[in-house]
């Protein structure tokens, strides 16, 4: 019998519809696989019993109307799921059971999918290696000493090791695209406002965006379509029609103009990244795209600006975790002491670091020098892209400056950790859509991704370009299931 966990999302939906297999069979296959894959530590919470019941109910009712009919899905543990523990990878929410369902996951369920489990992530999505989670680090299926990237590391690892057919992550500075790149999977961050942020534990509100993580571009189109919606409950959600990404998906990209920004050729970047990038250019040329050199002159200021804006917003967003209403509460002689103990015990080091940075850059006397300046930089970065987009349709860059690094390698060196986001962060600052598509392997046989950045709400364009790359790169997953 075929291994149902190795089938793509699109094929699973088709197979269930054609009754090649049942939803229950699919669900049980993933559950079995997960049970044999505990070493990866990709799940925080499993929802297996309920998932089986849901699959059985589905098989009885046979309602095939949804885009994801009968498919079990595990999602990043940053999405609030009704009556199911939602931790954001933090001790402070270790006992938190929401009474509500995030809009994005509700969209999944209304398309016929059901919850398989909640996936590990960096604490409050702050991290690029999934080492800051209170529930322990996640292992990259490409090697037992490798990080899967972050913050959606659990999602990437579970997807790459076939513990979920597809998944949903969130991306504030690269948290979908970087782990996708590290695990040979596809990850897309939609335009800011494309997906509702309602019910997602907030990290940095002006940058956060949910997005699909999948085995291939076709699945990505399908899942993006399922989660995108305008949501009046999120004031920053934008009322733009959701395209039929799947139906419109094509690798016919003839005549599209692709910009190659010289500023992304960073110092000390390994040759193989540059080689991969050049290969990407060739693939797109081959598919009929027109390549143009462009300049995005403020790129070098993106990372520092990001590490001001994101912590500033986080320091305020995380103020609600005070032990008063829900979540972890420590004892204290008075209110202040209770606050101090709760937050000292409840938050990990990286979260504390960012709260401190954020509090600092917003303090009176520093606000103008840091926060306001960073906002100005943000405008300039957006302007760079806006101006380029007068001449081109999308931008091609590497997704990350390296392949997956070793567990512990950068843990105590935040600057080098933050540098991992150098290619992904500008996109969040500008609110643009971007995708990471696996395009090759490095010398260590580790996957590398290419990033395509599109115009606002032109997700279709970058999906189509990615499909052209996917077809030409012929990337094959080469995971030996060493953990089993």
């Amino acid at each position: 019998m075929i291994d149902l966990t190795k089938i793509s999302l699109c094929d699973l939906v088709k197979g269930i519809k054609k009754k090649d297999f049942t939803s229950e069979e699919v669900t049980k296959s993933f559950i079995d696989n997960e049970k044999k894959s505990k070493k990866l530590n990709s799940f925080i919470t499993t929802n297996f019993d309920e998932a089986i019941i849901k699959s059985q109910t589905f098989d009885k009712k046979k309602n095939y109307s949804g885009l994801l009919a009968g498919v079990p899905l595990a999602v990043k543990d940053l999405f609030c799921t009704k009556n199911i523990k939602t931790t954001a990878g933090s001790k402070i929410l270790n006992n938190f059971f929401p009474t509500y369902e995030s809009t994005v996951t509700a969209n999944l369920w209304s398309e016929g999918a059901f919850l398989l489990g909640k996936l590990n992530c960096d604490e409050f999505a702050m991290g690029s290696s999934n080492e800051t989670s209170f529930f322990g680090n996640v292992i990259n299926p490409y090697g037992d000493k490798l990080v899967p990237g972050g913050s959606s590391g659990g999602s990437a690892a579970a997807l790459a090791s076939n513990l979920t057919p597809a998944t949903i992550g969130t991306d504030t500075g690269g948290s979908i695209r970087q782990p996708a790149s590290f695990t040979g999977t596809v990850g897309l961050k939609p335009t800011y406002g494309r997906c509702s942020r309602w019910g997602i534990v907030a990290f940095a509100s002006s940058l956060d965006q949910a997005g699909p993580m999948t085995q291939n571009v076709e699945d990505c189109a399908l899942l993006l379509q399922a989660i995108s919606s305008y949501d009046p409950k999120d004031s920053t959600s934008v009322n733009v029609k959701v395209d039929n990404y799947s139906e419109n998906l094509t690798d016919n990209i003839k005549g599209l103009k692709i910009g190659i920004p010289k500023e992304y050729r960073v110092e000390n970047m390994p040759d193989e990244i540059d080689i991969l990038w050049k290969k990407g250019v060739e693939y797109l040329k081959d598919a009929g795209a027109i390549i143009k050199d462009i300049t995005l002159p403020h790129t070098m200021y993106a990372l520092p600006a990001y590490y001001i804006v994101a912590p500033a917003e986080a320091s305020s967003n995380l103020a609600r975790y005070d032990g008063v209403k829900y979540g972890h509460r420590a004892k204290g002689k008075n209110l202040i002491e209770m606050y101090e103990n709760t937050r000292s015990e409840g938050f990990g080091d990286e979260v504390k670091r960012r709260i401190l940075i954020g509090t600092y850059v917003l303090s009176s006397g520093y606000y103008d020098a840091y926060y306001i300046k960073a906002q100005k930089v943000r405008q300039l970065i957006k302007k760079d892209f806006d101006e380029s987009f007068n001449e081109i349709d999308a931008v091609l860059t590497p997704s990350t400056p390296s392949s997956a690094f070793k567990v512990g390698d950068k843990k105590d060196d935040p600057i080098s950790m933050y540098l991992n986001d150098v290619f992904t962060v500008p996109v969040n600052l500008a609110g643009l859509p971007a995708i990471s598509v696996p395009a090759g392997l490095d010398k260590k046989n580790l996957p590398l991704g290419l990033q395509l950045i599109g115009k606002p709400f032109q997700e279709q364009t970058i999906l189509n370009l990615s499909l052209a790359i996917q077809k030409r790169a012929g990337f094959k997953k080469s995971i030996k299931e060493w953990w089993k």
Partner: protein
Amino acid sequence: MVEIMDQKKFNYYIQGEKNKWEVIIGLEVHAQVLSKSKLFSSSSTKFGADPNTQVSLVDSAFPGMLPVINQYCVEQSIKTGLGLKAKINLHSVFDRKNYFYADLPQGYQISQYKNPIVGEGKIILDMPYGSKTVGIERLHLEQDAGKSIHDLDPENTYVDLNRSGVALMEIVSKPDLRSPDEVSAYVKKLRSIMRYLNTCDGNMQEGSLRADVNVSVRKVGSKEFGTRCEIKNVNSIKFMQMAIQYEAKRQIDLLEDNKTIDQETRLFDTKKNETRSMRSKEDAHDYRYFPDPDLLPLKIEKKLVDTIKKNLPELPDEKKERFIKEHNLSLYEATILVSEKEISHYYEEVVKNCDKKLAANWITGDLFAVLNKKNLSISKSPISATNLSSMIKMISTGKISGKIAKEVFEKMQSNNVDPHEIVEKEGLLQQSDPKALEKIVQEVISKNLDKVSEYKSGKIKLFGFFVGQVMKVSGGKANPQLVNNILKEKLK
């Protein structure tokens, strides 16, 4: 120290041991927006519900919850801004004011900092020494916090989040106020305007209106402002006045003692009638304001402002002008009649059918006396506007005399009886039949022939005696004007 007060001329200066001082006051009024639901959530704002029964996931700041602006509250604050003759900012921004407290679930209050929805405006006060314009600096929208309850348990504090997220308008005055009386007039006028507009019920007992009071003093003649202290959260006009008096004297004592004032936040202790330091400038919170990334800047269409402006009700100042011009009322009467929306409504109801000047007299005189005595507001008046109007009409049409009217008015108070009914039942209709009156006059003259000759020989003061006698015989019902005429004729 002596407070010097003169009714005709502004004269609120405080004489210290060495100098004469002027008091400078600015107010930050927090007015609860009259709205069924909260500023960023759909929870009810009804007062007096059981604790924590009007709290949504947004109000209690659950993870992933997002604020959505209540458009009605925006319109209410535009309306208030227009009522304050203020500039409406078509672009404004919501900011986060960050601080930790148990009754502040988000860990920040959503407020407006650099770009408020309403800019500069003004309020005109009617003081005994003339009218005075007080500048409005700004009006902004913000969320209220919840309530910490410390006295339910010796060990624990309880939190009630019913108020959490309720919409407030913070209305900041310029430091234009100079005395406790001006502060009282300012708060009353502001409250009255908002009640006319239906944007705030102004109920101070329920906390719908409270103020932070900024007080400083300077020597009379000085142009510079002194260091100010802010007295937080005072919830009655009387307490505001007491707090100002205390605080001004405290500051003067310090300055005359060659000490300096610390810029600080103080609390008014209503039991001890004194202000106490709450926190100094050094301990002041750094609120780390920044634009709330969950909310887009608030854009208002000019068209909306125009529509609201067009539908604005007549406000007290305009009403007053109209009453003086068109109803021929005195400034004093007009000022009283417009001071509260309900009073002006009552007056306008009464004058639909009767003489306006007479109506103003009766309302500000007899009716107010009754209301004061019974401690009632005009909306609870024992005499309805319709009945008062009928009664006044009976006076002007000569059906009853002014004197009888007082009697009828007295009787109308129980059960709000129709004055016609009283007049009819008690036979109080004024006698205006000249023949019948002539008969009475003749009778009086015949009985007092000695007085008649005295009158005729020059003791004209006796005229009043004859009038009195005629009224007495008629049981007070004789038409005094007619009696006068007939008597004059007969005594010629």
